[in-house]
């Protein structure tokens, strides 16, 4: 009876997880997602706790109680810090999988060496490799996103890196073979610990060479790895709930990574081994071109005449904490009967979907957040396109200049609008380190200054004008 209830709970948990992800298809049903997911998790935890062999309750209660504080803290970080939080959470997930794998290995080694079938040993090795490499890799990714000083933002590359990585990979493969062949010899635990050390090293060796701009793809991939390590744990423990939940997570990370790669016109291989940072510098040469700049007052006067305004936000908007000012601008334009839409590039922000959350926090209705593919056909109808803190994602060079490092990347076609205003902090090039053709177009006027201050000025001029 007990075994039946436990398995039935696991089955219900699996179904609830699938429903949870299914309801994320629409913001209207999404709130049910959390309830379904949390209920599934509660069932899983309780069912496991009620297993007959689980008797040391204090060993369960204490870690759970200790987790409440950090859990609450990580749930309440500012939304700009969500990418780092996500990376840390992947690190925790990887650590948990790695430690459970380690615990199982040593228990079997000492107590039940007959458990080491080839299948289980292979699964166990995959579990600790994926778990521990996700742990260190995610910590480095979190450090890069948090812009911690001693972790370089630029790709970290050195001569012979490929050879070192290849050698490390070959060594790991060799150690893995040894352990599968002889999991229970006196020296086997030594091999096991070497594998853990290799995995911990792999994590940072894989993420350090990847630049800050590619972190959205990297955290999606690490998301996938964290899920796959749970799958491997399911194989080791013969638990189908672990396998299904891990597989759902693994496929989610994979799809997000593919979307990110497409949005940057990069391949997986290129992100992971490309070291994007090196080629970028070349195109910064060329003749010195002139910007036309404009004051916020005259820009406001032009905005007032528009019927359709599209705002293209980039991460610079969040850095300047300008979301709430942008919402004020949105409100005062709406009050004049002007249609305002936001054009969201998939890589605007620092993780998949990040910009939507930042704008939703400022209470901008999600119905006015429009995806790149949807808004591009209408861009020629746009009277004024206001670019706030975005750069590479509106650079027309991506569409026609074959020598540009971002050539082929899909962009928001801001250049098709009748008038373009671009708010920019300084005259330096953007994240990818390249000049933006859009800024030199006849139709473009630059508004130099901090995004929050400039948008504030626009709002003030608009409301000032409204009095007359």
């Amino acid at each position, binding site marked *: 009876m007990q075994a039946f209830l436990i398995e039935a709970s696991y089955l219900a948990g699996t179904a609830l997880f699938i429903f949870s*992800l299914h309801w*994320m298809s629409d*913001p209207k049903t999404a*709130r049910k997602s*959390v309830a379904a*997911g*949390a209920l599934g*998790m509660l069932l899983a*935890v309780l069912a*496991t706790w009620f297993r007959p*062999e*689980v008797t*040391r309750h204090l*060993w*369960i209660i204490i*870690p*759970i109680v200790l*987790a*409440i504080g*950090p*859990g609450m*803290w*990580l*749930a*309440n970080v500012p*939304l700009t810090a969500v990418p780092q*939080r996500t990376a840390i*959470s992947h690190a925790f997930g990887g650590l*948990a*999988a790695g*430690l*459970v794998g*380690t*615990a199982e290995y040593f228990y079997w080694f000492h107590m039940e060496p007959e458990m080491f079938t*080839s*299948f289980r040993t292979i699964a166990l090795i995959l579990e600790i490799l994926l778990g521990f490499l996700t742990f260190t890799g995610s910590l480095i990714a979190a450090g890069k996103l948090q812009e911690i000083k001693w972790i370089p933002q630029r790709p970290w590359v050195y001569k012979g890196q490929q050879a070192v990585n290849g050698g490390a990979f070959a060594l790991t493969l060799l150690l893995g073979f040894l352990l599968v*062949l002889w999991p229970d010899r006196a020296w086997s635990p030594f091999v096991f610990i070497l594998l853990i050390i290799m995995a911990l090293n792999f994590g940072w060796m894989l993420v350090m060479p990847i630049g800050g701009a590619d972190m959205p793809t990297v955290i999606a991939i690490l*998301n996938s790895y*964290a899920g796959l*390590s*749970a799958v491997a744990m*399911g194989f*080791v423990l013969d638990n*189908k*709930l*672990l396998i299904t939940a*891990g*597989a759902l*997570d*693994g496929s*989610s990370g994979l*799809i*997000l990574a593919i979307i990110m790669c497409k949005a940057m016109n990069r391949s997986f291989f290129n992100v992971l081994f490309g070291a994007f940072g090196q080629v970028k510098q070349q195109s910064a040469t060329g003749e010195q071109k002139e910007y036309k700049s404009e004051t916020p007052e005259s820009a406001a006067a032009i905005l007032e005449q528009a019927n359709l305004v599209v705002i293209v936000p980039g991460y610079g908007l969040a850095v300047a904490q300008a979301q709430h000012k942008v919402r004020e601008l949105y409100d005062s334009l709406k009050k004049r009967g002007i249609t305002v839409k936001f054009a*969201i590039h998939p890589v605007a*922000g620092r993780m*998949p*979907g*990040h910009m939507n959350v930042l704008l*939703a926090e400022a209470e901008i209705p999600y*119905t006015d957040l429009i995806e790149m593919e949807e808004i591009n056909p209408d861009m020629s109808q746009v009277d004024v396109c206001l670019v706030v803190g975005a750069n590479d994602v509106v650079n027309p060079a991506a569409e026609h200049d074959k020598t540009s490092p971002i050539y082929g990347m899909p962009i928001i076609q801001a250049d098709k609008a009748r008038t373009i205003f671009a708010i920019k902090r300084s005259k330096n090039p953007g994240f990818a380190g390249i000049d933006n053709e859009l800024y030199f177009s006849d139709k473009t006027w630059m508004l130099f200054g901090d995004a929050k201050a400039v948008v504030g000025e626009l709002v003030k001029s608009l409301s000032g004008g409204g009095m007359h």
Partner: protein
Amino acid sequence: MTFATTASTIDYWSMIFVFMLATFIGIGVIRRVSRLLHTPLMSLTNAISAIAVVGAIIVAGGEQYPTYVRVLGAIALFASMTNIISGFLITERMLKMFKTREEAK
């Protein structure tokens, strides 16, 4: 060095089947997730992949394990519990922010 007995071979295959089918379902479901919600999706799957908690509870609380193994399980339990709590709470927090024009007023 063989794949053990016939009975357990069958079981391995059924696990691999489950993995494959769950991956296909995952891909099918995730592809339909609104792009607006990719960030909450990631924090939600974070919480769901903390299903590693199942292994952690078994190792931390299982009768048969010696203390040094139990300690590893307890740390793993702490890590996955942190992910469960923060993952669901932050997803809820973000989803609450997504409003239509009527709701925003």
